[in-house]
């Protein structure tokens, strides 16, 4: 019993420490720039995990979803400062080879933190689901 209590206490303390951990150097420029990791579940066409890489060239947000052989180039991306709303679009294909367009709408949260996040929804054809990524 004492061992379990110790394990639970250690887990809670570790979790608390990690939740407050902050890297010394954060990215303080454009809030979307960087690599983001998270989930976009409930799809027949893609897995639950998602990696998004976003760039800022001074005029446009560009990037890629899941860099690799089946990557999706982001063709349209916007950040609306009023409410910090994020909109991403990219073209892909479903398992039958039919073209589909992914549309992601979310809200940028914890703006001041290095591990800020984007929470919202994804849609592609008739599919949709929750979307959440955090900056790495």
């Amino acid at each position, binding site marked *: 019993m004492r061992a379990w209590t110790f394990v639970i206490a250690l887990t809670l303390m570790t979790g608390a420490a990690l939740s407050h951990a902050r890297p*010394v150097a*954060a990215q*303080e420029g*454009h809030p979307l720039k960087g690599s983001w990791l998270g989930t976009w579940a409930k799809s027949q066409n893609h897995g639950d995990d998602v990696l998004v890489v976003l760039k800022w*060239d*001074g005029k446009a947000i560009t990037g890629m979803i899941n860099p690799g052989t089946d990557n999706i180039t982001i063709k349209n991306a916007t950040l609306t400062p009023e409410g910090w709303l994020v909109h991403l679009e990219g073209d892909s294909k479903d398992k039958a080879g039919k073209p589909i367009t992914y549309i992601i709408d979310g809200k940028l949260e914890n703006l*001041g933190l290095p591990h800020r996040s984007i929470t919202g929804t994804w849609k592609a054809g008739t599919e949709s689901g929750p979307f959440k990524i955090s900056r790495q």
Partner: protein
Amino acid sequence: MRLIARLVPVLLLGASLAVPIAAQRAAKPAAGPTPHWPDRRVNFGPLPGGKGHWNTGVGNLSEANVKMDGAFLVDPKDIDRIAPFQPWAKALVQYRLDTRGKDDPHPRCIPPAGPRQFNTPYGLEIVDQPELKRMLVLSGGGSRSWRVIYMDGRPHPAGDDVNPTYYGHSVGHWEKDTLVVDTVGFNERFWMTRRPTGMVHTDMLHLIEHISRPDFNTLRYEVTIDDPGAYTRPWTASWNIPWTTEEVEEYFCQDNNKDTGQLVGGDTP
């Protein structure tokens, strides 16, 4: 009565000692012309055998002369007069002002890079090394770091040779009595000024600084910010920094962080 008679000399002695010490600490530097080295270059430091440094901590990075309360705007509407922000940059700076600069990396011992080097408290020195064809800008505050300005005519690195850093890559030259410094290659891990807090930049930041010493006790600092990633056009800010005859106090934020108030949302000192 005897007690008073005994105390009077002690008090007088104490006063005689205290006055010179207080006067020394409050001593105003003697006025004088711009000092030069024998080859006529401007000397940004003390005279040979002397001591002193630039008493930083003053100056607002703002295009217009707006009223400030420490690191914050007295009139929130003045944010449009500070700089020609892109919409996202203005919103981010507004957020940082609204949250009292609590996320500023500087109190966590990140270097005072960019224009911040010239308004961070605890002093600054500019050391000329003509034999090495370079100048050093030494920060007494923050992480007590320094920047190298190459004076040998070398170009900035280009392409893959660019290694973004806090202080970037600085090259300088003289235009009469003004030191002109061109800097690129910044990373995005710092806020580029303490006043107003939260001023944003991107890795496209290009600084052109004009540094001069119009008289012995004044350092004139003028900086043009060219950052198409965060601003709609280049813009310029300037301020004067006074000379003090004291030596730079030894201070390391890692050892004796005097900015912890800001970590909980306090004022930026």
